[in-house]
């Protein structure tokens, strides 16, 4: 709350060249990606799009790097008051909330197809002679390995089980949530060795998770016939786990940066917003995984 805080005098920021470069970078990134996708679809052989994508990505990455470095620098120069730090805390929390809603859209899609669409396609609630249905032979069951229209969506051979790699991954992520908390304890105790050690372990667990996921995907493609084009089961499986994987990648990267910063001695018990933000993000990613594990793997197979 604003009221109970002590107020330092406010100061105003100077102009900044960073945002316009970031805008340009993100624009080039998506424009290049769009161009690339369209040319691929049209079967045109051109590298224009990928170059634009590459340049855009580099501009964006470089700008963000400078941007974050600058923020860190300003923080070290003791420019931030407690109130300003609270702005970051709020900002990060609302950003995570927006991510929750993004996953919510995909979870919602999963529930809707699973509980409504697939049974409908299988004929439930349909009072029409079955040979007038589009897909007379289709049985609406979940996990849906046989698709209504196998010529366009070939379907899978077998659904993904929950034991094996997914279970290992669950253990990895849950453990990593503990290790990151231990790192936090280390930070709070001012024990840099403890902080760095546990944090490094967390990053390691994150990377291990990603490796397992790659192996799992290979297994799905090669042995289960489970692909992106295998119909809605494959679609939801890969979209949800894939987006989650992308978030794990980002989270691991954030933690890695924090690891370097911790090694440089950037954090103090009362000044560690960067670390905390990364840790929250990591917990968020963990919770999403538990949802996935339950709804995609256990209840889905």
């Amino acid at each position, binding site marked *: 709350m604003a009221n109970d805080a002590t107020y330092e005098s406010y100061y105003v920021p100077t102009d900044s060249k960073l945002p316009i470069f970031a805008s340009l970078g993100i624009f080039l990134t998506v424009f290049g990606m769009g161009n690339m996708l369209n040319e691929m679809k049209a079967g045109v052989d051109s590298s224009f799009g990928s170059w634009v994508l590459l340049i855009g990505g580099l501009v964006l990455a470089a700008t963000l790097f400078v941007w974050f470095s600058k923020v860190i620098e300003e923080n070290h120069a003791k420019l931030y008051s407690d109130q300003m730090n609270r702005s970051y805390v709020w900002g990060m929390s609302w950003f995570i909330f927006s991510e929750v809603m993004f996953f919510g859209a995909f979870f919602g899609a999963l529930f809707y197809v699973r509980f409504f669409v697939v049974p409908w396609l299988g004929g439930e609630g349909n*009072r029409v002679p079955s040979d007038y249905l589009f897909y007379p032979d289709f049985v609406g069951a979940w996990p849906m390995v046989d698709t209504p229209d196998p*010529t366009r969506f070939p379907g899978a051979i077998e659904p993904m089980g929950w034991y094996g790699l997914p279970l290992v991954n669950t253990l990895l992520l849950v453990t990593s949530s503990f290790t990151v908390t231990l790192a936090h304890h280390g930070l709070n105790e001012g024990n840099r060795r403890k902080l760095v050690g546990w944090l490094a372990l967390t990053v390691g667990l994150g990377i291990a998770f990603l490796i397992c996921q790659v192996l799992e995907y290979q297994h799905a493609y090669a042995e289960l016939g489970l692909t992106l084009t295998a119909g809605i089961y494959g679609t939801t499986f890969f979209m949800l786990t894939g987006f989650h994987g992308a978030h794990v990648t980002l989270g691991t990267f954030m933690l890695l940066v924090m690891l370097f910063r911790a090694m440089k001695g950037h954090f103090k018990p009362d000044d560690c917003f960067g670390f905390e933000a990364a840790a929250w993000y990591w917990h968020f990613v963990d919770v999403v995984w538990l949802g996935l594990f339950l709804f995609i793997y256990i209840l889905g197979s």
Partner: protein
Amino acid sequence: MDKAKQSKVLVALSLLLPSSVVHADWSVNMRQGVTDISRQVYDLHMLIFWVCVVIGVLVFSVMIYSMLVHRKSLGAVPADFHDNTKIEILWTIVPVIILVAMAIPATTTLTAMYDAGNSEIDIEVRGLQWKWQYTYLNDDPTKEVKFISSLLTPQDEIKNEVLKREHYLLDVDNELVIPINTRVRFLVTSGDTLHAWWVPDFAIKRDAIPGFVHEAWTVVDTPGTYRGQCAELCGKEHGFMPVVVRAVERAEYDTWLASKQEEARLVYETVGKEWTQDELMVKGEEVYGRVCSACHQKNGQGLPPAFPSLVGQGLAVGPMADHLDIVLNGKAGTAMQSFKGQLNAAEIAAVVTYERNAWGNNMDDSIQPREVNNMMSTGQ
């Protein structure tokens, strides 16, 4: 101004204002329609309309009175009242009561609309870009009546080159025919993108969704021709796919259906039987001349580059599957449209066979209507 000039001006004016020519069904309100449900919907509409009008009039009169009287130029001094719990509760509760009063009849009507019950006649309504296909379902496939209904209004009326006639844009070649006082069920679906089958006089509007079938039903009590339009954006010609239903006496319906079934039986037989190469070529020439030659010309040479030649090159001398595919499905973005809705299986088999073996094309192969029919019904 002399007579000739005068009439020229008149014609010019009437071309400018085609609206002044015909005023069919000029109206500012919803139609009552010709079914029990449609009248219930109309009554409901009028009820909520008047409720809204009354609320509007009350609120606006208070505002306008205040604007006229409580103005500074008349020396009004601002009062200082605010936050009155009693009145705030009142203006929360009263709207709730009004809403409940509206929700009751709405629920009754909606429940009635959803009660599709046992129907005597089932008709599949399939939206296709940009026409409707109607199938009178019948357990005996030889008696299944199926036809396409598409816009009849000629291009020159649309392009403002001639005067627009009555039922401009609301006329089709083949109307859907149903009997009155009979429960008819429509199974609405789509073969490509979304459409919506809408007949205002029946108060039926159902989205046509590819892959899914949704019901709607009606019992019409007055004979007549009822017109509506596709009500879901479905691409370029969305504005040009009207729905026309003719409701007739039961006896008239029965004779109509019988004659249609006879036609269907003939088609079924032709499609079902084995055709000889010669039969296919004769039929194919006829179809080609009637349909295809407008673009590809009688001699198959086309008018390149707009319309490709079919002689000795391209798909007509390529693999059968590709050839068949372009005729069945057309090619998006070109004048070559999909013919599977316009020609029956026998006609398509014949015309394809013809193209492969006419004008010196010598593929020496043919395809049977039966095979084409199989492809068409699996929706490829």
